[in-house]
């Protein structure tokens, strides 16, 4: 059914491949939901084109677009049963009654809600409503499904399970997904590719690993995951920190380098033979169960974070607040940024 879903939005030029799970990540007001509404046909872009399977969607009203949306609030019809909600899109396409019922039952099974077809939305839990909304948007077999913060209304544990469920369904159906979220963990774990949005612009597009390991701007480095960002100057093809330390990097340094970003989990505490070393004093420790983060103040007042996995739990070996420590990181942990 699905021959390929390609969405192009001029001015930010985004192309989504058939069967891809693309995540648009951004803070509130970054324009990610507006982009989704433009693809769905609910807002008209002032310029640019939206093309799906070679067809320009620009002039089509929402009901003529071969795209379905799963709304953030689910927007289930309160006066219809779960099965009638799921069958709605099929009824609008003029399918036979028997086929609609069969497809609705099939979709209920797909989202593991067998036997709930006769319930009304108010008689379902939040998680069940979420799955009915998903089934409803998938039932007409769109070539592209838009999901607006599909997990934000669920509580944390349910969200993790549902995340895996969504990916499983997406793989099984082969439908391209564009999923909007503000949750970086959701983006990293689910996406084939992530697009980071900020102030209406697409800052970076790439696989989760590429965007996380090689962010192209200071904004992306700090928005997706945590990062120690230090201002640098370029000297003889190498970079130097404000304190004067020359940093060993794995890759060649561009002449217009402005910042050095180092992920906290790549920074080690204590004696080390790593090429880059700084000393400072621990000013704060924050315990997060799986990890322990030390905030270290350098002599010039800069704060750096070092996060370690607690593979052996808390012990006396970890430095306390007030202790002098050495921070170190390897050359390949350096992310050099020009903007």
């Amino acid at each position, binding site marked *: 059914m699905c021959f390929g879903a390609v969405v192009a939005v001029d001015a930010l030029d985004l192309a989504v491949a058939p069967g891809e799970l693309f995540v648009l990540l951004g803070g509130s007001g970054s324009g990610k939901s507006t982009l989704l509404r433009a693809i*769905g*046909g*609910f807002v008209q872009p002032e310029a640019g084109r939206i093309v799906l399977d070679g067809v320009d969607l620009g002039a089509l*009203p*929402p*009901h*003529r677009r071969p*795209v*379905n*949306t799963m*709304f953030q*609030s689910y*927007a*289930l*019809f*309160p*006066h*219809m049963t779960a099965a009638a909600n799921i069958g*709605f*899109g099929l009824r*609008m*396409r003029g399918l036979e009654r028997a086929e609609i019922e069969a497809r609705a039952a099939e979709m209920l099974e797909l989202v593991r809600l067998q036997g709930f077809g006769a319930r009304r939305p108010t008689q379902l839990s939040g998680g069940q409503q979420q799955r009915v909304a998903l089934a*409803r*948007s998938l039932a*007409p077999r769109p070539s592209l499904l838009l999901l607006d913060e599909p997990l934000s209304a669920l509580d944390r544990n349910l969200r993790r399970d549902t995340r895996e469920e969504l990916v499983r369904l997406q793989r099984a159906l082969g439908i391209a997904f564009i999923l909007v979220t503000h949750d970086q963990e959701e983006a990293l774990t689910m996406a084939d590719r992530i697009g980071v949005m900020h102030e209406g612009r697409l800052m970076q597009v790439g696989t989760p690993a590429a965007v996380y390991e090689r962010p192209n701007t200071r904004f992306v480095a700090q928005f997706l995951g945590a990062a120690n960002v230090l201002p640098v100057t370029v000297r003889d093809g190498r970079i130097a920190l404000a304190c004067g330390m020359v940093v060993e990097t794995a890759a060649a340094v561009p002449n217009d380098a402005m910042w050095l970003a180092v992920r906290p989990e790549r920074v080690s505490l204590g004696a080390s033979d790593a090429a880059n070393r700084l000393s400072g004093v621990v000013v704060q420790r924050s315990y997060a169960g799986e990890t322990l983060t030390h905030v270290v103040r350098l002599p010039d007042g800069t704060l750096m974070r070092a996060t370690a996995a607690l593979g052996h739990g808390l012990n006396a070996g970890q430095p306390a607040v007030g202790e002098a420590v050495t921070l170190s990181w390897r050359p390949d942990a350096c992310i050099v940024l020009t903007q």
Partner: protein
Amino acid sequence: MTAASNTRLPVLAIVWAWLLVLLVLPTLIVLKIALSYPADSVPPYAPMLPGLRVSIDAFSLILSDPLYAHALLLSLKVAGLSTAICLLAGYPMALAIARSSELWRSLLLMLVMLPFWTGFLMRINAWIGLLQDDGWINTIIATMGLSPLRLLYTDTAMYIGIVYTYLPFMVLPLYARLSQLDARLLDAAADLGAPPWRVFLSVTLPLSLPGVWAGILLVFIPAAGEFVIPDLLGGPQAQLIGRVLWQEFFQNGDWPTASAIACALLILLLLLPAAMLWLLRRGVRLS
């Protein structure tokens, strides 16, 4: 929970006292008059006690004389048609108000309610001024070179008056319901392939039905007993039940018959919302 029931009891007591004093008691008095013998006295009916003198003559009269049945049927027809016109005119109005911007919304709502600021009889008299043979409407028609129309004291004038008077009672409950409608449901329906008319039929209309029923009841019930508008704007043939009741009471001085008519009308108008509730419940169970 105890705190809630502590405050609920006095509030409910006020409501029940209100209903008892202003609704049940007067109804019982009317029923008592309807079951009394007429008498040449002031008031013109014989006391029931002592001796328990009860008469069902008034009821058997209104059941046997076709005049009353005819008036009742005519009233139901006029009220039904007026309600239908109010619904057809009021629904688009309510929808437009509910979908307009904040500023327009309050302005339009005020325009709907503005007529209430003037006395009802004044406004009906204004309609007489508009509709009469040398009134404003006929003056405009005459300047266009057309022959004048006979408007006042016709059924048309009566319907204009009733629809004009009761339209706000249709628009307001519909507006209240439609403005609560979640716009995202409309987006969802369009997203699933529903063109605008199907969005209306499958989402907007079914979700506004409680407002539709409220509007129908608020227009139909007072319109069925309407007396002033048919009397002032309608022709002599418009013998509605309210008018017949008035004649029995004030012209014939037959209080028992007038009261019996009032009782019959009340029973009929109580059956109507009951039937609607029953239909509504059944509809909910079916869908």
